[in-house]
């Protein structure tokens, strides 16, 4: 009798710790094969395609003779671009460009210094600082942990390090999306001129206009979140390629949501310009249709619109990225990790609690959320105002490039972009 009781009680279903085995998870046998094919072959092909496209575009836009004319100092002067812009706009009493550039300065400077922080990470210092959340101190900016300038995290990571690393990561992602958007958008916009392809391209644009981005992003993030658990134990090469594909797929998805706008802009511009007189003249000269579209219409007339578009979407891509990181932290089921340093700070429990209990006026950990919020507001408003200025330049053409002193960078950019 007792044996029966015992055996029947033992059949009871109860809580157990998860005893997972590798064999019960599908696909691990083919992990290496799939990871090598997915993460090495694809990015190589993509990089080759990108480089080829870039070379072709550059060859269309910049004539070789002009490149040779400029000296080395002129190229390096591009690094000092923001300061030149400040000086020229102050001289011309252009308050709006001045404000825009001042707001964008922290972002620009941190992108310049971000590679330093991407590589260095002083783990000894971090472990020594663990458990201490230090407020900011003025000295020692560029130590490995960034301790001092903006304070430290609860884990000992310097906030300056997180911010500068974050700007580098965000800049990389936005740069890749914008590149993708411009390259594919230009090509597709050009194709809308021909009636056969116009239907398909406008349909394509409408399709990607109507898909909400986040729904698909979540599905993709879950895939990458799973792979990450296995990639952590592999070599540096696979990890590098994994990161590349992750960034590239996210960039492509986000870029697909902005493509339709660019296509519409370019198709409208082409339509307005194709009925002008000078096009008939070029046709009479015997220049091919392709060259007319690329050079005479887009290169000569559309570039300012494109730059305006870039300034508009750059800010929205940054915000999209941060909301994607929020989604990743809210959906921990996906297993993915937060991508950028800014979001890491904004979504830490200390900041969320400080904001939810804001009525109690507890500013104990103010440096956790002040700096990323400051950076976000300044960059986004800076890009908005910059776009405003560009629009004014397009419409009213108040800023006169000729009256500005001949400084090397101005001549370079002036020759590249202006009419």
């Amino acid at each position, binding site marked *: 009798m007792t044996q029966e009781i*015992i055996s*029947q009680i033992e*059949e009871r279903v109860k*809580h*157990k710790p998860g005893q*997972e*085995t*590798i064999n019960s998870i599908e696909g691990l046998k083919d992990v290496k094969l799939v990871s090598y094919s997915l993460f090495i072959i694809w990015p190589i092909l993509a990089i080759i395609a990108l480089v080829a496209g870039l070379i072709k575009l550059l060859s269309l836009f910049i004539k070789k003779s002009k490149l040779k004319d400029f000296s080395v100092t002129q190229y390096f002067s591009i690094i000092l671009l923001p300061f030149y812009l400040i000086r020229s706009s102050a001289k011309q009493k252009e308050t709006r460009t001045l404000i825009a550039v001042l707001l964008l300065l922290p972002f620009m400077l941190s992108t310049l210094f971000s590679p330093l922080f991407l590589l260095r990470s002083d783990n000894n210092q971090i472990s020594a600082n663990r458990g201490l959340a230090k407020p900011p101190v003025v000295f020692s900016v560029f130590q490995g942990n960034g301790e001092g300038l903006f304070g430290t995290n*609860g884990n000992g990571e310097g906030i300056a390090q997180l911010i500068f690393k974050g700007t580098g990561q965000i800049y990389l992602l936005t740069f890749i999306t914008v590149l993708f958007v411009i390259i594919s958008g230009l090509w597709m916009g050009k194709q809308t001129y021909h009636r056969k392809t116009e239907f398909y391209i406008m349909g394509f644009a409408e399709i990607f206009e109507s898909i909400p981005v986040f729904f698909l992003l979540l599905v993709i993030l879950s895939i990458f979140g799973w792979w990450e658990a296995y990639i952590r134990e592999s070599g540096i090469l696979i990890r590098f390629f994994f990161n590349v594909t992750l960034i590239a797929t996210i960039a492509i998805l986000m870029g697909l949501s902005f493509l339709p706008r660019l296509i519409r802009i370019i198709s409208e511009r082409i339509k307005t310009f194709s009925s002008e007189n000078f096009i008939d003249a070029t046709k009479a000269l015997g220049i091919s249709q392709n060259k007319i579209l690329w050079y005479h219409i887009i290169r000569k007339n559309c570039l300012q619109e494109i730059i305006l578009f870039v300034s508009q979407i750059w800010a929205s891509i940054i915000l999209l990225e941060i909301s994607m990181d929020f989604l990743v932290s809210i959906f921990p089921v996906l297993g993915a990790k937060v991508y950028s340093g800014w979001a890491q700070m904004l979504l830490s429990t200390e900041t969320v609690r400080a904001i939810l209990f804001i009525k109690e006026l507890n500013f104990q950990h103010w440096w956790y959320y002040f700096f990323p919020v400051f950076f976000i507001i300044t960059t986004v408003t800076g890009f908005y105002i910059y776009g405003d200025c560009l629009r004014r330049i397009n419409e009213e053409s108040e800023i006169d490039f000729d009256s500005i002193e001949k400084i090397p960078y101005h001549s370079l950019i002036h020759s590249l972009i202006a009419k």
Partner: protein
Amino acid sequence: MISFKKIVFILPTIFLCVCFTDCVKKDELVYISYERPDNLIPILNMNEEGKYLTELIFDGLVNKTTVSTGGREQYQWALVSEGGYVEESPDNRFLLSIYLKKGIKWHHGKEITSKDVLYTWKTIQQSNSPLKGWLDSFIEDISILDDENYKFKIKLKVERSKEAFMELFAPVKILPHEILENGTYVELPYDLSENSKYVNDFKWKPVGTGPYVIDDRQSEYISLKVNEEYSSGVPQIPVIKYMIEKDRNMAVKSLNTTKYGIIFNVNPESFETLNRDRLDYKSYIPYSFYVIAYNTLKSPFNEINFRKAINSLTRKDTLAKAFFEDITLETNEYVNHSIFPSNSRYPKSSEKLFSESTPYDPRSARRLLQVSDNNSNSFNLLVSSAIDGENRIKNFLASYSRQMGNEGIKVQIDDVTSPVYYQKIRDRDFDAVLIQFTGFDHFFDIRGLFKAGGELNIWGINDNSLNVMLEKFGSTIAWDKLLNSAIEIHSRVEELTPGCFVFTVPRRCYYSKEIRGLDIHPEVGFSTVENWKYNTN
């Protein structure tokens, strides 16, 4: 027209006034939870939140109370009349008659009869529910006579055991027989393809005899209102609102804004923000704990002196402090001095009987190391920081390796991802492993831990005397007699030292101070509604 000056002065005042308003009614009790209840049919397998709700909506023959006498639960007859538990003639020790109370009504107005009990038992028999195994172990049949609506007979398999009856059958919630007629029975969830509409409705609009009735069910909350005709007296709280907040920070915020609120199952990370003036807490007997398990089949841990030496070198206080670095806890809440950390059935005074045989003592450790045949001074520790929270585990590991390093023993840490971790545990491919047991119930899981071939037996123990003791432990249903066998098992395991039980992860239930007299039990929730009182100011 609105002038700018008006905007400057009026808007901020409106803003500030609106800031300080509250949106919750005064007489509501808000229960904040992270998960939605699976379903509200009590005989199905469900999560904790479902259990808490069904305790309020349904009655069993007996209701558990949380009035503690020495830590044990008490029972209160709810549906059975006074003197209704009748054991038949002394010769026939396998029959029981139970008499129900008359006049107890379901929430839809009809009276409860013995037919409901019979049909409840029948559905359990036909289902895959875990209750089936318990009841089958000592009940053979239940029968009713046609003209007796308030009496039923139970035929037992085992000799009469009132304790088994009270523990296993009496708390089962009784369901109305309408849903169970005509052969439509309720199967376990995820297989409700041939359900009737009534059953599907019942799953979310249950009908019971309990003190509360479901009033409204939205996706964000479930509200219960008082059952005015409850037999044991109407409770004082008129409305209970059950809110579902998946975000932990938002749950903390909600509790701080309500006047009468409860939140269960709070993990240590949230203790700091909840330690505010308006809130009080009760600590659970914790049900999850960390163990450093030794592989007794492999060197160096196959030798008992080495195991005892390593145990004597671990300082549990510092390890726990490294893990709970930023959380202030009282030491008795988390430091583990026995192998039965989750123990709701033993009286509190018995905790001293479970003591550690290898406390922190470096001298005895050195002596044991000299005596041991094993000359090794290093071992591997298998860990998966991906599971538990990377920073806490890393602090723990740093502290542990430092402790061992001070005595000349090198610990090599093997930090892997979770699938590899579990594979290695299954293959016993480790020297020592840091593992967390959650949802641990000492009665049901202790045999899996230490019995030869048990599921949780990761240390590879196979001791004959221990096996015998564990079988005896499992066969006693009377909780009074369990204590002695538990002490025996404990002392034998301490002799074998298969591992180091490091610390437990406590959980708390936070509630607003305006709720006085609330007794909370982790398995039962809050079931005694008569004891709730508000501040009468």
